[in-house]
C-alpha cells in the first residue's frame, strides 16, 4: 500500500492522514466546496474536489470519490466514521473498483448495520440482548397487535429504526396510548434519515450504563477485544464524554464483556476495527445493544491506555498482516483516559450549532494531553456537517488525575470567534456525580433539564473586571500595541490577512 484515499473530512480525516504518513503511505484527501481550506486538505499530499458543500453532493458521492481514487492511483480507501463508513454498498463499490476497503467486509457491514439482524447474530452467539421484537414490526400491523407486542416486552418501550444511529428514528414510549403515534413518528423519521422506514421495539432499561468493547479482527480469524470504554455521558443519545476504563466495570465483568464482544464478532466473521456496544444494568447484568462496523470517534482513549495505534492496525490488517498483539495486554489498561468532544455549539443556548470563522485557536498541550482537531484559526466552520471541532483527550495514572488533567487542559483551550462547548465541559467535570463516577445514560439529560439552570461559566468579579478592562484596552489599543510574539508568519496567517480577518475584527471591536 503506497497511497490511501481518505473518504472523509474534519478531525478523523486528519487522524487517518497522520497514521498514513507515519507508515510511509501517501494520504489523499477529498474535499467539498466549503472545505478547500480545511486542515485535512492542507495536510494531504494530493486532494481532489468532489463537489458541493452539502454531503449528498460530495462526501456521499461514491462515484466521485472512486473517480478521485482512480485519478490519484490510490491502492486503498479509508472511510473514517459517518458519511459512507457503514454503507455496505460503498465498501462493495471500492472492492469492485479493484481497491482495498480499510474496514470490515461488505457482508459484515450489511449484517451488523441492520439492527434486527445484528440482534439475531448476538442471540445465535448466545449473547444476551435487550428484550424486544426479533424482527422489524410489519408496516401494516394492527394497532391492537402492536399494543400486544409492547405489553409482552414491558414498558417503557423504545421504538428504534432498524437502520438507525445517533438517536434518529428513536422514540421512548412510557404509556400504551402513545405507542401508535411514536411508531408512526419513528418510521417517518427513519425513512427521511436512512431511506428505510423499518422499526422494531425494545424494552428501555432503567438507568443503564453504556459500555462498549473495541475489537480488531484480522483476515486469519483472530479477533482481539480491548478494555472497555464507557460512554454513558450522553446528551440526547449523543456521546459527549467517553472514558476508559469504566468506573463501573470490575475485572470479572471486563472479561465477560470482552468475551461476549469477541463471540459476536467471530460469529459474523468480522475483520478490521469494530465496536460492540452493551447496556449494563446497575447489578452488572449486560445486554448487547449494537455493533459499529467502523472506527469510533472515541478510539483515541483506547489508544492512550493500551499504547496501540488502532488506525495503523486498521491499515495493517487491510494489507494482510497478522494480529500478533498480546491479548492480555489489551485488557490491562495502563492508567485512565477521558475524551471531551469539543463542538461548535452554544451550550448556553440549547447547544445550537455555532458555525463561523475561528478567529483565535490555541490548543492545550503538556503532559498527558492529546488534541485530535480538524480545524485551525482562520477556518470557517461550515454549517453543512457535524459541528465537532476536536476531541480533547487527557491521560493520567488514575481517574481523579485524568479528570484534573482534562480540567486543566480545558482551561488552556482558547477558541475565539465562535461558541464552543468548552465552558460546558469545565462545568461537567466539576460535577460531584461525575467525579464519583455515578452516572448512567440519562444522567446528563436529567441534569440539563433542571429548570433553574444558570450559564455554564459564571464569571467571578475578578474575571468580569478583567474582561471589562480587556474590552476597553482592545478597543483603544488594537492597532498600535506591537505583537508579543513577533510578526505573523505562515501561509495560513497570510490568507487570514488577505481576507481581512484582523481588519474585520478590529472594525467590529471599534463599532
Amino acid at each position, binding site marked *: 500500500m503506497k497511497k490511501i484515499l481518505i473518504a472523509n473530512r474534519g478531525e478523523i480525516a486528519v487522524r487517518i492522514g497522520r497514521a498514513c504518513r507515519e507508515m510511509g503511505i501517501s494520504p489523499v484527501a477529498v474535499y467539498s466546496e466549503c472545505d478547500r481550506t480545511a486542515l485535512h486538505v492542507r495536510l494531504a499530499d494530493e486532494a481532489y474536489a468532489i463537489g458541493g458543500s452539502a454531503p449528498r453532493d460530495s462526501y456521499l458521492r461514491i462515484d466521485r470519490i472512486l473517480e478521485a481514487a482512480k485519478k490519484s492511483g490510490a491502492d486503498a480507501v479509508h472511510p473514517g466514521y459517518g458519511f459512507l463508513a457503514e454503507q455496505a454498498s460503498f465498501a462493495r463499490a471500492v472492492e469492485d473498483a479493484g481497491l482495498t476497503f480499510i474496514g470490515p467486509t461488505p457482508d459484515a457491514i450489511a449484517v451488523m448495520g441492520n439492527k434486527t439482524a445484528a440482534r439475531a447474530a448476538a442471540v445465535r452467539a448466545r449473547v444476551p440482548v435487550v428484550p424486544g421484537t426479533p424482527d422489524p414490526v410489519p408496516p401494516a400491523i394492527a394497532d391492537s397487535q402492536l399494543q400486544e407486542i409492547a405489553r409482552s416486552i414491558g414498558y417503557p418501550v423504545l421504538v428504534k429504526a432498524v437502520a438507525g444511529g445517533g438517536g434518529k428514528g428513536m422514540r421512548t414510549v412510557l404509556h400504551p396510548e402513545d405507542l401508535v403515534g411514536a411508531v408512526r413518528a419513528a418510521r417517518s423519521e427513519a425513512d427521511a434519515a436512512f431511506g428505510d422506514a423499518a422499526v422494531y421495539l425494545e424494552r428501555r432499561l432503567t438507568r443503564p450504563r453504556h459500555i462498549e468493547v473495541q475489537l480488531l479482527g484480522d483476515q486469519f480469524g483472530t479477533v482481539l477485544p480491548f478494555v472497555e470504554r464507557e460512554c454513558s455521558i450522553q446528551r440526547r443519545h449523543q456521546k459527549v464524554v467517553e472514558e476508559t476504563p469504566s468506573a463501573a466495570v470490575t475485572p470479572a465483568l471486563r472479561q465477560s464483556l470482552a468475551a461476549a464482544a469477541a463471540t459476536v464478532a467471530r460469529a459474523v466473521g468480522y475483520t478490521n476495527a469494530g465496536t460492540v456496544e452493551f447496556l449494563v444494568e446497575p447489578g452488572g447484568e449486560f445486554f448487547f445493544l449494537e455493533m459499529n462496523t467502523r472506527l469510533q470517534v472515541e478510539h483515541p482513549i483506547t489508544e492512550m491506555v493500551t499504547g496501540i495505534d488502532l488506525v495503523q492496525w486498521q491499515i495493517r490488517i487491510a494489507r494482510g498482516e497478522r494480529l500478533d498483539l498480546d491479548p492480555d495486554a489489551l485488557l490491562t489498561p495502563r492508567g485512565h483516559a477521558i475524551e471531551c468532544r469539543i463542538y461548535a455549539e452554544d451550550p448556553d443556548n440549547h447547544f445550537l450549532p455555532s458555525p463561523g470563522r475561528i478567529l*483565535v485557536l490555541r490548543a492545550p498541550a503538556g503532559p498527558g494531553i492529546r488534541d485530535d482537531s480538524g480545524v485551525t484559526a482562520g477556518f470557517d466552520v461550515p454549517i453543512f456537517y457535524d459541528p465537532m471541532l476536536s476531541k480533547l483527550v487527557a491521560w493520567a495514572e488514575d481517574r481523579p488525575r485524568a479528570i484534573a488533567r482534562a480540567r486543566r487542559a480545558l482551561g488552556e483551550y*482558547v477558541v475565539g470567534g465562535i461558541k464552543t462547548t468548552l465552558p460546558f465541559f469545565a462545568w461537567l467535570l466539576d460535577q460531584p456525580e461525575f467525579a464519583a463516577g455515578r452516572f448512567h445514560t440519562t444522567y446528563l439529560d436529567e441534569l440539563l433539564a433542571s429548570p433553574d439552570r444558570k450559564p455554564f461559566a459564571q464569571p467571578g468579579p*475578578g474575571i468580569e473586571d478583567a474582561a471589562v*478592562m*480587556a*474590552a476597553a484596552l*482592545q478597543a*483603544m489599543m488594537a492597532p498600535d500595541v506591537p505583537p508579543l510574539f513577533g510578526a505573523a508568519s505562515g501561509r495560513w496567517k497570510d490568507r487570514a490577512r488577505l481576507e481581512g480577518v484582523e481588519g474585520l*475584527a478590529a472594525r*467590529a471591536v471599534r463599532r
Partner: protein
Amino acid sequence: MQYDVETGGRVRHVAVTRTGDGFAVSVDGRLHQVDLARVDAHTLSLIVDSRPGPFGPGSVYEATTAPETDGRLVVTIGTVPVTLRLNGRRGGRRQGGAAPGSGPLRITAPMPGKVVRVLVKAGDAVLARQPVVVVEAMKMENEVRADRDGTVAEIHTRDGMSVEAGALLMIIQ
C-alpha cells in the same frame, strides 16, 4: 479614554490612561495598573496590579476578544466567556457629535486623584497624544493626554487639586 461597558445587566464605567510603561485603568472608580501585552490580533495578556505597591495580587489574565454578529463582544478568559457591549467613548472623539479634529475637546480626569502637574498653559499648541496633565491616584502618576491636535482654550484645574473621575480638566480648541 473613557468607555461604558454593559455586561451582566449593568453598565461599568471604564477610564483608560497610558502611563510610562503600561496603563492605568479605572473600573467604576476603582483604579488598577495594567501591564499589557498583545498576543495576537484578538488576544491581550493583562497583568493587573503587578508592580510593588499597595495593589492586589498580580493577577494574570489572557483575554480573547471576538465580535458577535449583533455588535456585542465576547471576551473569553479561560473557559469563561463574558458577553458585553462597548458603548461610545466619552471625553474623547465623541461619536455622533462633532467630527474628529474640530470643535472643543474636553479633557477630563480618568479616575479620582490629585493633579500633580499641569503641563500646559492656556494658548499653548498641543499635539495629539501629548501629555497635558499628570494625575496621581493610588501612588501612581498617570499622564492624561490630548486626543488630537489643538490649542489649549481653558484650564479648569491647578497643581495639587483633588479631582473626581470625569472632572473637567481643560478644553482644547
